[in-house]
């Protein structure tokens, strides 16, 4: 009798173990694998560090209960904001991790390099940091962009500069990359069409450290109303300070207004100091937005990281939340995620809304907010859109 009880106990235990194993296997199947391609080294590494924070916060919230029975896992690869390492990272990610969806890159050159690779693997990719028009025009069926492209931003900022700031002369300052050159060209075309004049067109490499010579050249070109600037945060800081030292911009008692788009994160003004006074720029995340989603995101971010969120944190958070949204709408693998993403009509993220056109470009403009730097280095929302 005792032996029979022992046998039944053994069978029961084995049954429970088998059931647990099956349940584990099912749980394993109910996972959406996200591959993340972000710069974790090099001059664009600040993007990757802030992207990771936004992602971690989103995953922490989502994985508490899951979505439609799915949990989310992530694997990062360092794509270094540069085409070659980005291509290698993409191949590594696809070969080894086999993600259902990819998020990244930040820099346009890197994004353009990995697009054919992810399309060949039929894996969708959501981008929130690269502005080059080439990414979605013509683009490919697997690449989606949730932020405005360079044309949407460039046309808008040039028009606002001409109409709202009465700017008639401009100096273009940009890094010699796809995104830098593309953004500057859109501004130039729009501004000149409106009747404005470009008095100097200055491109520079990412290895330039001292911008005093460039500021000197700008100081010598005569009256300048606006200086649209397209560069990463580090060089952006040095440019703003050099322009102030040369007495060109308001921060250096000059008359010109520096214009910028989304390249610079929240906190830029505090680092640049008085030199940033009067800087007008597009930000794609307004931390003072009174929507519940934004308030919850800001509160959650502060609680987790003891810091104010930047637009980079917010973009990464939105990328994950958009994936969760398509899973909620029934997507479960790479192909269905792609198809459901393409059908997105009114996703409400913390940076704004998302609706994709036939090229997978977000057509919503409520992600563009204009801010001007006040004397105390805080933001004055210009409410131009």
């Amino acid at each position, binding site marked *: 009798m005792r032996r029979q009880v022992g046998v039944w106990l053994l069978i029961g235990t084995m049954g429970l173990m088998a059931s647990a194993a099956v349940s584990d296997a099912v749980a394993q199947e109910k996972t959406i694998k996200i591959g993340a391609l972000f710069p*974790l*080294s*090099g*001059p664009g*590494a*600040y993007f*990757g*560090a*802030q992207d990771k924070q936004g992602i971690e916060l989103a995953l922490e919230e989502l994985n508490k209960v899951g979505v439609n029975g799915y949990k989310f896992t992530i694997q990062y690869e360092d794509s270094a904001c540069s085409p070659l390492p980005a291509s290698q990272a993409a191949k590594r990610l696809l070969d080894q991790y086999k993600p259902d969806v990819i998020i990244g890159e930040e820099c346009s050159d890197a994004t353009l390099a990995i697009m054919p690779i992810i399309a060949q693997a039929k894996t969708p990719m959501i981008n929130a940091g690269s502005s080059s028009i080439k990414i979605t025009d013509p683009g490919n069926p697997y690449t989606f962009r949730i932020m405005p492209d360079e044309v949407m931003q460039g046309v808008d900022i040039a028009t606002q500069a001409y109409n709202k700031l009465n700017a008639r002369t401009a100096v273009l300052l940009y890094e*010699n990359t796809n995104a830098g050159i593309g953004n500057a060209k859109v501004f130039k075309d729009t501004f000149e069409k409106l009747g404005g004049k470009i008095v100097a067109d*200055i*491109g*520079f*490499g990412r*290895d*330039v*450290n*001292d911008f*005093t*010579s*460039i500021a*000197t*050249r700008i*100081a*010598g070109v005569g009256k300048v109303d606006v200086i649209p600037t397209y560069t990463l*945060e*580090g*060089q952006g*800081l*040095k440019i703003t*300070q050099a322009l102030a*030292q*040369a*007495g060109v911009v308001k921060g*250096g008692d000059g008359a010109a207004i520096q214009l910028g788009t989304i390249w610079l994160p929240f906190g830029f003004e505090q*680092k*640049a*100091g*008085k030199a940033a006074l009067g800087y007008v720029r597009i930000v794609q995340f307004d931390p003072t937005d009174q929507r519940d989603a934004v308030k919850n995101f800001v509160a959650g971010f502060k609680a987790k990281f003891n810091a104010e969120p930047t637009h980079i944190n917010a973009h990464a958070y939105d990328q994950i939340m958009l994936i969760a949204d398509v899973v909620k709408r029934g997507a479960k693998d790479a192909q269905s995620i792609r198809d459901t993403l393409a059908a997105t009509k009114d996703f409400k993220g913390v940076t704004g809304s998302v609706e994709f056109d036939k090229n997978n470009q977000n057509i919503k403009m409520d992600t563009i907010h204009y801010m001007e730097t006040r004397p105390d280095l805080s933001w004055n929302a210009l409410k131009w859109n």
Partner: protein
Amino acid sequence: MSATIVAQQAINGIVLGSLYVLVALGLTLIYGVLVQINFAHADFVTLGAFAAYFLMHLTGASYLASIGAALGVGALLGWAINLTIFAPLRHKGSELLPLIATIGVSTMMQNAMLAWFGPVPYAFETPYSQQVYRVAGTFFTLQSVIIIAVSGATIAALYAFMKFTFLGKALRAVAQDRETAALMGINPNHLIMLTIVISSALAGMAGAMLAPVLVLTPFAGTSVIVKAFAIVIIGGFGNVEGTILAGLLVGLIESFTTQFLDPGLIDIVVFGLLLAMLAFRPTGLVSERREENV
């Protein structure tokens, strides 16, 4: 084109060139004595910059004190790395091993700094970079004056050390012929250690001087090191006077290329000059026998 703009770009070029000289001097010194390229030099510069930054921001020390601290950190690091990595490899008799080790040290330091300091650029402000003087249509900051003064003083001190002190003469003897110097009672290993310590100290100090100019990240030094290598070659491998001349020349080329051509062409002009030097004057701007360079 007004004379004021030309004068302003000349000032800009001399300030930038002085910074390049500070970075390149350490490289020149090591090449002159060891005939070795130190690929980790850029990271010594970066660490010096961070040492100065944190000393100023955590303890409230003055900028000038932070320059001294960066010099000390550089010297200490050079001593430690030579003792634990370079010297043991040199004693194995291969010249290639220490060279490869400098690449390893560079990668290790970059990633260690990335882990410690993070990738977000730091804004290194000194009280002097905000003080702008405007004279006869030109402008310069007090920071620029300090850069030129410290660079000048460093060059003079190094020159005096090499020419007029016993250690300097011994170091030149080791550069000329290590074995004969040893027969004369000079311990080459001590002198090699001294060379690496001086070179690293110069790199650390250059970091503190560059930090307010550079975009301060764990990769900051790499953005100037390629130019510094070019300066060492243009100046004449291991030649101190040539390095000073070439550093100032490259600074001026950058300024005037920005003004008259395009900043996107700077590297083409600088490295075009480097190729021209290699083709037509491979001994560099100041030609001497390598053994007499240091």
